[in-house]
């Protein structure tokens, strides 16, 4: 069945069963993945995911059900399940009738559809070759891949809301391995774009190879307190690990370090944190959220003050405030949750080179590991294994490895002394998170 027919029949059939408030969420995506290993195609896959979710409000209770097949059998099943689940559900939730106005954005590009598989294969092979040829100490490339993805979300309800949104992008990623004697160092690099031609495989390969090479000879440094620059990608990784702390749900459940801090100063003056569903270089663009609430750009932290948490309708109602348009569903099978869209620190005006020149003895951190276990979102404490470069008298001198950096996210935000101008968005996940390089006055470093 066509989606439009299916939707009409589902609503009609629902009304016959005295279900009047219904919402259909449809998400569909197409993805192509290609991985090359030693000049041969190692992985080649295509996928199309499409599913719909029905939410219905019955006697003030919400039920959920989903289907991945659009036929009459599914209509019966969806309605039966939604009734049964509404009957047993004990959480309060509502269906949003619709907003007054939605931002008109249309980032989808046709261009990506015109790229042939052969061109994609060639790009990945070129990338692998460029890394291996960069230097004889590049011993292997352990990941070398291309991925493109397009997705569409639709939200239709019985109040008359009918909105949809479509986006696409292509992505290349490489991880290069450098070896000298017994020491092995890996480094990765990626590029993401809506224009295939803008993916530069040779440049990406060289960056990964050069970073791996530059880490050869790394040693630990003496433990102590050092001023630290978190390189843009590393700063984004750290922000990403704490991204759930801005969710009102986590705050209300006592799972966030920001609980009770609304309106307070939580960061240095120079720190402004945006959630921007319209950010041009962001991948998590959207005119409306998973409940249909209009999305909008907001300052979560404004010049150091915590302005708002991210809400969906349920958390907003708990606090008698409005949804911030951050309801999120990972798929038609999931519940309404909360997530940032494109979240990033506002860039400053200082280049990374200038930042480095301001440090007498310190560190540039380019990699952190262990974010899953090593970062506590309730206390804000983190202790992470790290690598990077030593800075001596304003210049990078030696690579550094096998150290840990430890601190507290909240304290760290307050100790940021310089914000770089080099904003970089990281690899998108459920949110797209980015940061410029950040200079921290002082951090505990454990090494020798």
């Amino acid at each position, binding site marked *: 069945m066509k989606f439009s027919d299916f939707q009409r029949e589902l609503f009609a059939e629902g009304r016959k069963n005295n279900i009047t408030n219904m919402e259909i969420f449809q998400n569909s995506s197409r993805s192509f993945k290609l991985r090359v290993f030693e000049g*041969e*195609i190692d*992985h*080649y*896959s*295509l*996928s*199309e*995911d*499409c*599913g719909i*979710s029905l939410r219905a409000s019955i006697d003030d209770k919400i*039920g*959920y*059900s*989903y*289907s*991945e*097949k659009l036929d009459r059998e*599914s209509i019966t*099943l*969806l309605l039966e*399940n939604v009734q*049964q*689940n509404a*009957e*047993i*559900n*004990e*959480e309060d939730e509502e269906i949003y009738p619709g907003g007054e106005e939605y931002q008109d954005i249309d980032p989808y590009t046709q261009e990506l559809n015109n790229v042939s*598989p052969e061109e994609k294969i060639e790009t990945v092979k070129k990338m692998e070759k460029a890394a291996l040829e960069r230097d004889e100490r590049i011993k292997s490339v352990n990941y070398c891949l291309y991925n493109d993805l397009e997705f569409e979300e639709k939200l239709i309800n019985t109040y008359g809301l009918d909105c949809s949104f479509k986006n696409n992008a292509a992505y290349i990623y490489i991880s290069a391995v450098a070896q000298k004697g017994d020491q092995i160092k890996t480094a990765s690099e990626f590029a993401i774009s809506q224009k295939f031609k803008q993916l530069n495989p040779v440049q990406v390969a060289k960056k990964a190879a050069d970073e791996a090479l530059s880490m050869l000879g790394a040693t630990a440094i003496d433990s102590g307190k050092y001023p630290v620059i978190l390189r843009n990608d590393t700063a984004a990784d750290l922000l990403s690990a704490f991204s759930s702390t801005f969710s009102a749900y986590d705050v209300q459940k006592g799972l966030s370090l920001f609980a009770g801090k609304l309106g307070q100063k939580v960061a240095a003056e120079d720190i402004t944190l945006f959630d921007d569903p319209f950010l041009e270089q962001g991948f998590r663009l959207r005119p409306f959220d998973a409940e249909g609430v209009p999305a909008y750009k907001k300052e979560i932290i404004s010049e150091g003050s915590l302005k708002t948490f991210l809400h969906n309708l349920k958390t907003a109602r708990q606090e008698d405030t409005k949804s911030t348009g951050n309801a999120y569903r990972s798929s*038609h*099978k*999931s*519940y309404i949750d909360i997530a940032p869209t494109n979240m990033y620190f506002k860039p400053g005006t200082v280049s990374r080179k200038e930042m480095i020149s301001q440090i007498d003895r310190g560190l540039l951190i380019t990699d952190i590991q262990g974010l899953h276990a090593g970062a506590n979102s309730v206390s804000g404490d983190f202790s992470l294994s790290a690598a990077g470069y030593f800075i001596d008298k304003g210049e990078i001198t030696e690579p550094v490895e096998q150290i840990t950096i430890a601190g507290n996210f909240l304290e760290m935000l307050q100790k940021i002394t310089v914000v770089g101008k080099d904003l970089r968005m990281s690899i998108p996940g459920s949110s797209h998170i980015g940061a410029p390089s950040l200079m921290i006055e002082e951090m505990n470093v454990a090494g020798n």
Partner: protein
Amino acid sequence: MLNNALIGDVIDCALSTGGDFAEIFNEDRRSTTIKMMEGKIERAVSGRDYGVGIRIFNDTNVIYAYTNDDSRDNLLEITGDAARALTGKSQLSRQKLNKTAAEDIHHIKQPPENIAHKNKVELMRKAHHAARDHDSLVSQVVINYQDYDQRVLIANSEGLLTEDERVRTRTAINVVATRNGEKQTGYFAPGAHRGFEFYEDINIEEKAREAARTAVTMVRADFCPGGSMPVVINNGFGGVIFHEACGHSLEATSVAKENSVFANKIGEQIAAPQITAIDDGTIPQAWGSQNVDDEGIQTRRNVLIEEGVLKNYLVDRLNSRRMDSKPNGTGRRQSYKFSPTSRMSNTYIDNGSYTPEEIIAQTEEGLYAKYMGGGSVDPATGEFNFNVREGYLIKNGEIKKPVRGATLIGKGADILKKIDMVGNDLDFGQGMCGSMSGSIPTNVGQPTLRVSNLTVGGRKER
């Protein structure tokens, strides 16, 4: 499900660029999951997963594609796109489809679809109250209920056409006990390849009380002393160590690429002579069973280790090409979204001759691991680390005081040689096993057994 004409055309299309094998996996699954947190239903989701997975081989290269849209045009389009990875000419014509029906050995009596969700919640509530009321130290109870009915159709270019239906039910009970700010957990998650009739045969309240008893016993227990000692591991879920530390190394996925310590060891003595280990996908109504595997091959009872000698690996179609060995009904996948590979089903160490009482009585001093918890294994080295959920010290052949915080540390290949007593009380525990082809239901199992010597991690000085 797809009709034969369309299946044939899709396979032809898949082979059109030189592939030498093509397969279709069509799935239609109904499932319900309900979560109860502290006696309150927090989420209930039901739905229908539906899709088609298409796999093409060219020697040992694999192309995989999947879609939810099973219309003729779309299937031929995505199959054509997938086949474009190869640039040869069609070399082989497919065999005519020949439908075979595997005998159903599971006999579902009460399909979960026919049971009202209210009744499922009632069951959960019973479990909740049984655990909650067990002891005042119980601080949190979470119940996760799940059932599904997965129908699959599998066809390939060799003429295979078969169908199977897998109905599974499970209830996971998680209990936390708190004392002086410290938390300990108890856990039971019984499940089976059965319908709702499963709950007529097991007593869910008993399981919930047992989970609560574990949590409460452990939160009151002293820390376990560390060191090297004999360890007696109880039957059932204790088999998780064999599953994780040995079973995965017997999967063709790791053997074919010689990443396994057991590669090239068929016919060698790799375990103590008391050990016979089996992977059996045909046990009626067992959690890890199915009539055919996800490549359409009838499941079977594969003896992996017989009296300590390595006999067999778990082999799927793709790896059989790399290993010069036939596939043996062990190709599995989470859903149509995954390309299948060799996986375990119901994997266990078989019964020996001792009673559990004899094993304890003959152990002067050591640790009794009544229930095992989670753990991890480094696949490259086989080194494992498992938590003991409920443990006791053994003194002079008797089980004495409970101890908490114990971990068992060792190597898969070593532990097999150090098992010196095997009991006669084989039992199973249910788990979800995650690997390359997704998360699948598997049974682990063993009788009570003794490891002569194992490193026990603990916080207390001896």
